[in-house]
């Protein structure tokens, strides 16, 4: 890492990112069948807590939004709301095929097919459903990204808010939500 490099990080950022990557408080949005994969990930078999991953109770306290499975339009609305309530820096992990391309719900009349059209996803974890090993690998990837300062989904979301909003409003016709305020 070069000091003069424009993309390089300051020492403060390195320390902060180091702390951030070791303290990932997840808000597990158990939308679909993926929710069942979270307990083995967190409990003694795979013990994600050794990576600093820990459940958070509310979006205000959380760092990572974990979307575990298909999202109906009705759920998407809540997910967007939750994401917007989280504090920067914040990350999104799409979990399972459904978040990538719709998975087995590809032609459902009320399920979105690609999450990254609506929210900035930092890491996708493939699988239907992904095993806890895959989940841990996803977290490891996220940590890598954070340390490198590349997990900047939140910034992207803020910058491209209009595009995201347009996509969101396309599937959520009746938009009754407050303005975005972190």
């Amino acid at each position, binding site marked *: 890492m070069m000091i003069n490099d424009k993309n390089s990080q300051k020492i403060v950022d390195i320390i*902060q990112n*180091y702390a951030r990557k070791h303290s990932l408080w997840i808000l597990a949005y158990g939308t679909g069948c993926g929710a069942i994969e979270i307990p083995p990930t967190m409990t003694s078999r795979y013990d994600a*807590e050794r990576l600093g991953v820990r459940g958070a*109770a*509310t979006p*205000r306290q959380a760092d990572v939004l974990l979307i575990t499975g298909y999202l109906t339009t009705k759920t998407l609305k809540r997910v967007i709301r939750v994401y917007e309530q*989280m*504090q*920067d820096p914040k990350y999104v992990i799409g979990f399972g095929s459904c978040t990538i391309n719709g998975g087995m719900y590809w032609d459902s009349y009320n399920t979105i097919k690609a999450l990254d059209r609506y929210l900035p996803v930092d890491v996708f974890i493939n699988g239907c459903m992904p095993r806890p090993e895959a989940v841990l690998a996803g977290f490891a990837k996220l940590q890598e990204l954070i340390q490198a300062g590349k997990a900047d989904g939140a910034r992207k979301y803020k910058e491209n808010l209009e595009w995201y909003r347009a996509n969101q409003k396309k599937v959520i016709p009746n938009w009754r939500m407050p303005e975005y305020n*972190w």
Partner: protein
Amino acid sequence: MQEILQYTWGALVSFVVAFTVGITYMGLNRKITARVQNRIGPPWYQNFFDVLKLGSKETSIHHGVMQHMGPAFIMVTAVMSLLIIPILNDNRFFPNLNFHGDLVFLLYIMVFGPLGMALGAGQTGNPNSAIGVTRGLSQMVGFEIPWVMALVALMIQYKTTSIVDLMNLQAETGRWLMFTSPFAFLAAVLAMLGMFRYAPFDIVGAPQELASGPMSENGGKYLFVMMSAGSVFAFAKLTLYVDLFMGGANNLIILVVKTFILYLIPMLYGIVSPRYRTEQAIRYFWGWPSLFGLLAILQAVFL
């Protein structure tokens, strides 16, 4: 002026010590819990990461002035407790504000912060916060009874309301109060279970039911200050117990050892316990702990 500088210095140093030790204890708590559950668990320094991360959060929201001030309230309590509770037997290194009657003062200043924070939690408008606060306050009324009974028993027995006096007494006689007033110690320790709000008395901020209750709307810097204050306050409370019942400490290492042993009690009790409902918790504290407190008073009066 000299004095003020001295006290400020003492406060700063004890704050740093308390912060470090308190956060370490919290981390150790997680580690030990994980080990008990047959997990590897986070490293012991995990909570430093957490605090640092919370401190490095870029944005924060608040719902009004009271919520903004809430963490400051609880920090005041933590710092004031530290200022009053003697850290070591020898007052030279950490000079602080001890005076006669500081026990009574402590009892009140220790609820100052939670009440201030409760106001902040109330202003968020989140029903979970308010529910958590009501449970917390109710539970506090529960455990204050045995706790005050234990303290009153000490006051009766040793005719003083000063912590320093009690510490000097133990230093002179060489006997710890936990042996000379066992019932008071029991009552106080059982009250401590409630004070630390670990299981089975963790309904206040139960993440599953109440979404962490009073803290549910606090993130970023607010949670950062709260967590730091919690750690400092926990250490202060443990130090108070050590001072009162375990003869104080002559240097920091002994203090850390003693406080850690004491800390194991609520921690281990919490690991193996399910959760009480609020009224069950209150009845619990008004049962055996209060009986021990009563026995302590009887012992103090008649023996």
